[in-house]
């Protein structure tokens, strides 16, 4: 079986459909000591060898607990952080190691929607300025005369009143602000939008509106999403494929059904069994896998399999040999566990 750096072989999609290709990407943040003479005493391995492909019109969900590196991964994709190692290709073009000016033109194709609609919009800019600002950076996208109309159209597309173009962010509710952020991301007609926890700050009733908007825009503009979130229910709803991250590594990758109905990695199973289901009739009828302890420090991850310190299946081999993300006998999709085996944890078992 091949190493982590190849995309699973069971995928049937033609290669030209791949719009974003990530290979063995690493981001190590140096840990420094000293004030004047800084010396590096170690590295926080926030992202440590992640590979996946994203196809046109597809949503890839990235889940994991806080500190697993999912947001850093998003920043790497955006070119907001420089990769330590590895390759990120958008439409076949390498994006790591670009000069700032080249990075800028690369970002036309990949835009971001952030979590907090309160802090990601400049309070002193009008909505029109915020949504139209990408046109100042990329003047060739829309001619000057048409920019105002184009901005109004964008507001209309995301369900805001185009007449509110001169209002300020504080005059909008949380859900509406998130729509402004989405309109800004759409301005340059990107192929890919990286969504980093885009609905977790919103109230339940508003969350559904924004999720529906994401889906509607995807159909309309044939967008590809990298949807980073900690809420496994939301990710299942919106994703075609899902990657599960733990301590900087992708531990399981598969389509939505494979990850949720047939998870094979113990971490995925533990994570899924902990998700509450809005149905009191199922109470006590689902298997509860309680993961002991906390996530270890990414500056000093355990040897071998990083999950072994919390895993109930751990054997000697787990401490010495790092399991690769690959298809195994009892796993139809890539899973980074020596003992990968399907187990249904989200449905009632007894």
């Amino acid at each position: 079986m091949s190493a982590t750096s190849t995309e699973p072989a069971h995928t049937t999609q033609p290669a030209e459909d791949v719009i974003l290709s990530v290979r063995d990407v690493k981001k190590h943040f140096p840990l420094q000591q000293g004030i004047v003479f800084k010396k590096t005493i170690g590295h926080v391995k926030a992202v440590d060898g992640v590979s996946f492909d994203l196809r046109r019109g597809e949503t890839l969900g990235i889940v994991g607990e806080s500190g697993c590196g999912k947001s850093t991964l998003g920043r790497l994709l955006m070119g907001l952080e420089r990769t330590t190692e590895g390759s990120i290709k958008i439409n076949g073009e390498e994006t790591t190691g670009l000069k700032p000016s080249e990075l800028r033109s690369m970002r036309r194709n990949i835009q971001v929607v952030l979590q907090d609609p309160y802090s990601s919009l400049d309070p002193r800019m009008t909505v029109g300025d915020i949504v139209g600002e990408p046109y100042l950076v990329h003047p060739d996208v829309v001619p000057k005369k048409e920019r105002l109309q184009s901005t109004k159209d964008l507001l209309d597309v995301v369900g805001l009143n185009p007449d509110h173009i001169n209002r300020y962010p504080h005059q909008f509710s949380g859900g509406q602000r998130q729509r402004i952020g989405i309109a800004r991301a759409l301005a340059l007609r990107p192929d890919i939008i990286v969504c980093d926890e885009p609905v977790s700050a919103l109230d339940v009733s508003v969350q559904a509106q924004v999720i529906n908007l994401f889906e509607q825009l995807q159909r309309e503009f044939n967008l590809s999403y990298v949807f980073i979130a900690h809420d496994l229910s939301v990710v299942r709803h919106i994703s075609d494929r899902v990657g599960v991250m733990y301590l900087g590594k992708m531990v399981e990758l598969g389509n939505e059904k494979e990850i949720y109905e047939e998870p094979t990695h113990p971490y995925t199973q533990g994570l899924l069994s902990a998700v509450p289901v809005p149905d009191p009739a199922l109470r006590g009828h689902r298997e509860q896998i309680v993961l002991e302890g906390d996530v270890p420090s990414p500056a000093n991850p355990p040897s071998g399999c990083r999950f072994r310190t919390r895993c109930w299946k751990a054997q000697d081999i787990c401490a010495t040999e790092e399991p690769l993300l690959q298809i195994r006998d009892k796993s139809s999709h890539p899973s980074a566990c020596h003992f990968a085996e399907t187990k249904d944890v989200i449905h009632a078992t007894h």
Partner: protein
Amino acid sequence: MTDTTVGSKRGSDPAALADLPWDPNAPLLEVTDLQVEFHTRDGVAQAVNGVSFDLKSGETLGILGESGCGKSVTAQAIMGILDIPPARVAAGSIKLRGVDLLQLDEKTRRHVRANKIAIIFQDALSALNPVFTVGWQLGELYRKHSGASRAQAKEKAIELLELVQVPAARERVNSFPHQFSGGMRQRVMIAMALALEPDIIIADEPTTALDVTVQAQVMKLLADLQQQQDMGLILITHDMSVVAEVVDKITVMYAGAAVERADVHQIYERPAHPYTKGLLESIPRVDMKGHELAAIKGIPPALTNLPEGCSFAPRCGFVRDRCKTDDPPLYDVPGNRQSACHYWEEVFNS
């Protein structure tokens, strides 16, 4: 009531509590027609507008609602920790075993807190004091409320940390809050609430800031301890899934008012208020891949400017002319439940 304890700085006087006319046959907690208003620059905000519920020993009540619906203000009113002014309890009663807490003076109220009712907040890091050790903060309860010495208080603090399953409690007792992980901090908050063996614990979004696996651990701990000590638990949350897993009965709040009250099984099976129904239809579930979410349109009204008639009318799918003028009372619904909707039968049978 006068403070009679000698040698205590701020007066620990359990005798003051013993003198109150407790009625062991009265309900543990009975909140009747509670109204809390806030005086703001924009006018008077009706944060809580006639909320009633009761709670028995060993029972768990869920108060469900979105931000700004008045659920946290209700909790603060019960605890007696509202900021007065701008807040004001305009009407209603909060009876603990027959004693109306709103009629007590501040000194007696202080004894009720911690001894009778305790609260767990969402954000443990800001609820704990960063410059004192965890042990000192836990011991403070014993020093202030039961006159324990420093050494005794520390021993008690260790016992508490063991009770909430903090590993290596004897060493961790001297740690500062920032040295604890999020889940461990929330355990410390639970320990603090349990310290003086209260009759009621109010948990205000206790797991919202936690990762899903830690959330499961903390909720399990809370439920176990509640059963052991036969306490009443009020769980305040916006999360319909968490509520479904733990509570016995639910009060759904919207724009300051209770819109539906029912047993947990009934409400999920057959909601009798359009808002509850809308919430249930708008959340994605981890155990099934749904279709498009049925989002509730619009946003909650401003509390300073509630619409005439039913507050939910502008967002409601069942709305009629009558809803825009008549504020619906809580109608009785078969199955010992209530719904504040003129057309609950229609919702019930839809």
